[in-house]
């Protein structure tokens, strides 16, 4: 019997496809309830509740920040001034920074992604990364990468805002804050996609030299050291490490070296589906 409960599918009925797809469900053979996760779940619940209280409703465009309850209170006050300034200048910088040791751990500045000034901030950080050594695969039009990133990001935001979900409503009311490190991490990710796609193409055509070039280009991403402003000055580090992506980057590099075509192709399809060329 198929998922719909019909023992004999009707002509043109494609619901059986779901049953076929279910056959490759990664958890098809796993019963999560038998893994003894109750203690870990209980510990996580306790940690989350202790991390701070639910946020209060913040009026107007004042976006709530992650962090402990005390941080939220300070942030709301600060954001009054920043919001007023942004309204005059159309700028996206908030003057608010993440705090080390809180859930974000990232001490870079918060940027209002829904602000008209956001594309300029994105461009500034993209150009900085290029100066700091971020390299895309040969044939990549970096100007196009930036343009596509901004236009797709803005289009995605408009789509998210126009939905009927609670998340869409929250986005319309509060806007969306992202951190500078996150923006830089996205560009680093797009660079990684360019190298993965370059490697897939080279592998398909059997070009060993270009495969090796792609491996070197990918590995070099881990050496891009970026300088970022924080509340107390600046901090610097590998952009991959700053976004906690070194491990997966190096794993991808290893798999490329090993010639694991199916794994890299699958990862590229999943991670880089909308990456601009």
């Amino acid at each position, binding site marked *: 019997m*198929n*998922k719909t409960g019909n*023992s*004999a*599918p009707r002509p043109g009925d*494609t*619901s*059986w*496809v*779901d*049953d*076929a*797809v*279910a*056959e*490759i*469900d*990664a*958890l098809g053979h*796993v019963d*999560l309830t038998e*893994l*003894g*996760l109750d203690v*870990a*779940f209980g*510990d*996580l*619940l306790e*940690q*989350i*509740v202790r*991390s*701070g*209280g*639910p*946020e209060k409703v913040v009026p107007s465009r004042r976006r709530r920040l*992650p962090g402990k309850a005390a941080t939220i209170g300070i942030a709301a006050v600060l954001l009054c001034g920043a919001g007023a300034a942004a309204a005059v200048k159309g700028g996206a910088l908030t003057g608010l920074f993440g705090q080390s040791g809180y*859930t*974000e*751990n990232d001490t870079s500045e918060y940027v209002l992604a829904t602000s008209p000034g956001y594309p300029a901030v994105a461009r500034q950080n993209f150009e900085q990364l290029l100066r700091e050594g971020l390299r895309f695969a040969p044939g990549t039009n970096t100007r196009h990468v930036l343009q596509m990133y901004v236009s797709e990001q803005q289009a995605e935001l408009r789509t*998210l805002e126009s939905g009927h*979900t*609670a*998340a869409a*409503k*929250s986005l319309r009311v509060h806007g969306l804050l992202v951190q500078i490190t*996150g923006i830089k*991490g*996205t560009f680093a*990710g797009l660079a990684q996609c360019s190298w993965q796609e370059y490697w897939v193409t080279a592998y398909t055509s059997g070009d060993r030299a270009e495969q090796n070039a792609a491996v070197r280009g990918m590995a070099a991403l881990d050496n891009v050291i970026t300088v970022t402003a924080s509340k107390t000055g600046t901090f610097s580090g590998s952009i*991959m490490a700053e*976004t*906690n992506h070194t491990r*997966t980057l190096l794993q991808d590099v290893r798999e490329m070296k090993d010639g694991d075509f199916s794994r890299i192709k699958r*990862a590229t399809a*999943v*991670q880089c*589906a*909308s990456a601009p060329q």
Partner: protein
Amino acid sequence: MKSLAEALTDQELFETLYSETRMSILGYLLRRVSIPTDAADLLSDTYLVAWRRIGDVPEGESGLLWLYGVARHLVANYYRHERSEHALALTLRHALAANASAFEREHDAPFAEDIARSLEALSPGDREIIELSAWEQLTPAEIAEVLGIKAGTLRVRLHRARLAIAEELAKAGHPGPDRLEIAE
């Protein structure tokens, strides 16, 4: 400032939501992230959002759909490297790491590679629709709520995505519903 009674209600609401949905959300994340410990971090992030926005979380079964929506965006950010690792989920990370072998994705079902390939050929959006239907067993109306699109639009996209997969599988020699019937 909230009264103690209100605060307790928030916490009780959250604990109920958490206990009723955590397995489903963990399953969703494990299916989409190849590293189980990363799924633990994303689970932690998902419920941190829910805890902070408990006032926005719809009641009843829609709460699970709201969480799928949050988890979906976090997974997208994860693949864009916009995520942070933190200590909240340390115990769960260890527990999942200890069970890592259970999550290894070796499919021995006939046509598994063809099915995976046909799924990859879909657009990311349509792939998500099929996966929510086949893996999370959501109805079209529920998927539409998760994705924030109209149910009618969703049904059309679901049907087209299924057709596309069926066509690809037919090319690969998959007998379609007949094989599944026999398998029962």
